[in-house]
């Protein structure tokens, strides 16, 4: 099932602007390799789920996949052929706000070559430009 918050303070949110780069969540912390967004955007819950399935099918039985983003934001829309006015539309889907530099997914327990193939499958489903990064030790 696509991800969604259990409890929210407000059903609808304003659209906002994505400014600056990610200053947190921009390092590989759980796995050995990560998929980092190179541009900002919204990642819908369906897209996160599609990416998870694409990657999980590849790492099955060998590695472990981590999802580092969660769709906290509700995105509303108004039906087609509706007259202007009558207020804000109803929540249509849930999305994660992605800043450039955010790590979206991580994998552990597989080789670098396998991680590369896994993320290539995953990257095709992403609406933002991404790149593969390695964990950095101090």
């Amino acid at each position, binding site marked *: 099932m696509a991800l969604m918050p259990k409890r929210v303070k407000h059903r609808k949110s304003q659209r906002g602007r994505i400014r600056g780069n990610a200053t947190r969540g921009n390092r590989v912390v759980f796995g050995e390799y990560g998929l980092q967004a190179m541009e900002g955007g919204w990642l819908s819950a369906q897209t996160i789920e599609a990416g998870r399935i694409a990657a999980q099918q590849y790492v099955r039985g060998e590695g472990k996949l981590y999802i580092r983003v969660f769709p906290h934001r509700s995105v509303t829309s108004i039906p087609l052929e509706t007259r202007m006015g009558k207020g804000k539309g109803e929540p249509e889907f849930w999305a994660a706000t992605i800043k450039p530099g955010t790590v979206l997914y991580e994998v552990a*327990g597989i080789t670098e070559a396998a991680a590369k193939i896994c993320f290539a499958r995953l990257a095709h489903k992403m609406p933002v430009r991404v790149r593969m990064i390695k964990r950095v030790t101090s």
Partner: protein
Amino acid sequence: MKSEKLPVDARPKVGSRNNLKLRREGRMPAVLYGHNEPAMALSLSYDSMKTLLRKHTKLVDLEGAASGQALLQEVTWDPFHREVLHIDLLRVSADDRVQVEVPVLLKGEAPGHDQGGVVEQVLTEIEIEVAPFDIPEFLHVDVSKLNLGGALMVKDIYDLPAGAAFVTDADEMVVHCVRAAGDADIAAVTAAPGEPEVIGRKEAEEESEEK
């Protein structure tokens, strides 16, 4: 750990604008502090710093505007981890004891992998207290006896230098072997998603809205 030479210059102009100019010239800002002496703003060559970081160097011999030995206390990277923005240097001497984070590497092949498990390293760096000249480059934990469902703790690290002590809890887990995800975990559940509960909303409000 072997120390490397690091030439440094004094940095009379401080602040983000001046640091930006410095970086354009192929240098980077740094600060030296410790031993109850006043902090010193320094600049150093970007290339020499990159070389040190590639070698996992932690201890440096300062030359030029400052002298003595210093520990690379903190390295600030840009959000994409491409360029080093700033370095914190801590003055150290032979009789000091410092707390540093050292990467932990796994050694050997875990039998749990053949039993259908995934070896998951939970802790990749641990903090130890050690003399600055005894800082190890890596610490190792032997996974050659790690079976499915098993775990190894910080205390199982076998190559801690003499005189060093763990700052990280010795009973904290470093690595464990867990069962890999099965088909059931992969398949998407197609149950219709509901709406999340709205905090603070009363039932009466919801009913009136529905009407």
